[in-house]
């Protein structure tokens, strides 16, 4: 399945609808990165949310930076916190 990548700020209600979720693949990632199914419905959604197009490499770099920040924060946490919360794992964008 081919995907497109963009960044967009989730404004809340109706940012994505039930109908849109049924019409194309959509996955929110750290750093306001969105992975969007490559079809006409996905293209229309990117336009609706004023998404800023990214290449997969660019999108992955944004996600990697967010995860690195979260991992550093986890490393600095107490043992009690670490016993209950997993260290954030790397994410590979589909």
């Amino acid at each position, binding site marked *: 399945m081919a995907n497109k990548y963009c960044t967009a700020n989730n404004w809340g209600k109706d940012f994505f609808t039930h109908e849109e979720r049924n019409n194309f693949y959509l*996955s929110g990632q750290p750093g306001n990165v969105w992975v969007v199914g490559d079809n006409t419905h996905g293209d229309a959604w990117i336009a609706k949310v004023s998404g800023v197009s990214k290449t997969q490499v660019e999108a992955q770099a944004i996600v990697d930076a967010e995860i690195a920040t979260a991992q550093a924060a986890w490393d600095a946490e107490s043992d009690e916190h670490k016993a*209950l919360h997993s260290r954030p794992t790397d994410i590979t964008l589909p």
Partner: protein
Amino acid sequence: MATFKGIKGFTVQTLSSDPTTVDSVGQFYFNSTSNTFKYVQPGTVGAWASGGALNTARNSLGAAQAGTQTAGLVFGGEGSLKNETEEYNGTSWSEQNNLNTARASIAGAGIQTAGLGFGGSPTSGGTTAVTEEYNGTSWSEQNDLNSARYGLKGGGIQTAALAFAGTTGGSNRLAVTEKYDGTSWTEVNDLNTARVDPGGLGLLQTNSLCAGGNTSPGANYISNVEIFDGTSWTEVANTNANKHGAGGAGTSTDGIIFGGNIPSLTAATEAYNGTSWTEVADLATARTALAGAGTGSLALAIGGAQPANSALTEEWTLPDVVIKTVTTS
């Protein structure tokens, strides 16, 4: 050319709007607004849509488990300890009076105008037994849980709630279950498997469900599921994946579990029909330590860790019917 009336003896009905109720399944009609022929199928495919964002991003928050998509309630959480309370009206969240005791990993029950918050962690690694009732305006402190703990879950309503699972810290995991009658907590039969941070749900004490969780420090997540019948817990079918920190909504015969760690973040949603679990449509955004509320067909997924603290709300809808438009080739 043959006409429909000529073949069937009657004309196709004309409707100005699409039917929405299950008794319309099987109908074929002309929609005079869109000028299209349509028919009605049973609703079998649910989906998550975006809802209003929380004013305060957070994870490990509590929710009024029996709240609805148009009347939700969340409170507490972390990303620094939170006492903030917010109400949802189906579109947006609004800040309300705070909890008296700020805490993370708090459990919740009840509805927006009669909520209940109990247990949690008011300091790093600390535990509390404090119970507070919300009346739609403010919180008042009530009798404590018998067993102080955090990472517990709850179900039911303000006058008949259930608290289960949790930890007092370290490697400790609890199976302790308590019932609340609107005044005080009474310990009842334990879960069969002690755990912390399971997915939990239950619109009533007697249809609560505990799914997954963590049985010892590290990524020791389980898929074990138990349901409570008002007296004791019974093991039922496991979820498809081991998970921890999931949200939940619904009942032990019609419920959903969503998100969590497996141990990576997951967006997966699993639906339980009283017999088995089925993977259904994913959340748009994978996250853990989120809150849930509502029913198996109309639910909210609120906040969580993405891994950064999240303000996201997603709304699950499993429609009664699906409208299909007839197209010609």
